[in-house]
């Protein structure tokens, strides 16, 4: 996975978390993962298809998810509240949507699918070309994990190169 694909997700997560939680965030840890994905708590998964294909998971331990959801909702939520899971899905939607907007401006075209709650303990195993990058964001109310497994769809590369070329000319 190239950094040009990853950076927009880091920027988007940083901006969305900082605005929603009203506190700065930092990257605590960054690692590559080829093993099957292991859910940490409340997780939302979004598939993207197009020039780049794959999936992104946002994952928070249950206590952090509750604190994040309460902060976003503006009031304390009960632990079992459906709204906690909804908030994690919407958080994924915000981060991925903003990252995709930035990538689209770089010439990549793809479709974002609605977020789904990731309920199984293990996710699909990464492969050689969809090795997952796991980024841990440290926030004032706990860690937020972003697990990104994306791959280029080679047939679309010329179109993207042309698009980038057109922008350079402009």
């Amino acid at each position, binding site marked *: 996975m190239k950094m040009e694909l990853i950076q927009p997700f880091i920027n988007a997560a940083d901006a*969305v978390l900082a605005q929603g939680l009203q506190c700065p965030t930092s990257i605590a840890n960054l690692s590559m993962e080829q093993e099957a994905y292991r859910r940490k708590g409340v997780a939302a998964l979004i598939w993207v298809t197009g020039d780049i294909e794959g999936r992104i998971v946002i994952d928070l331990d249950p206590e952090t998810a509750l604190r994040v959801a309460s902060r976003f909702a503006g009031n304390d939520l009960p632990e079992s509240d459906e709204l906690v899971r909804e908030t994690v899905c919407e958080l994924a939607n915000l981060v991925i949507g903003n990252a995709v907007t930035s990538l689209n401006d770089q010439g990549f075209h793809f479709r974002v699918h609605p977020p789904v709650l990731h309920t199984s303990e293990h996710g699909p195993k990464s492969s050689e070309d969809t090795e997952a990058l796991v980024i841990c964001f440290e926030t004032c109310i706990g860690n937020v994990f972003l697990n990104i497994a994306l791959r280029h769809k080679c047939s679309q590369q010329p179109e993207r190169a042309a698009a980038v070329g057109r922008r350079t000319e402009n």
Partner: protein
Amino acid sequence: MEQFAPVKRSKDGQPVRYLVVDDSVFARKNLARMIETFGGQVAGEAGDGVTAITEYERLKPDIVLMDITMPQMEGIEAAEKIVQQHPEARIVMVSSVGYQENIVAALQRGARHFVQKPVKPEVLYEVIKYVMGEDGTAAHAAGAGI
């Protein structure tokens, strides 16, 4: 949350009525809280494009706040179908996916404006006033405003 000068309908001074369309309950609640601070009224909610069309027919809201990425029918298609039947419909797209092609597609198919998520209340408020145009008035209540 910050309070804004209430935006009322010019014709009868009543609160602007909104239809909020988003597959996320959290996003709908968040928008509903903002609408409250604008002095508006949530007339109805929908979680997908198909329901949005039927709810528009039933409620005839003043403004529709419409997400794009939704199950069953996406927001841009739903907006187009509503505007085909009701050219006067005021639809504001509210989406995290804000790249140029998406915005242009939404506007070409009938949406009046586009607001990118995460939504800033002051931005949405200005968009609401703009979209309502002469059909809306922002009353300057004491202690309110931005």
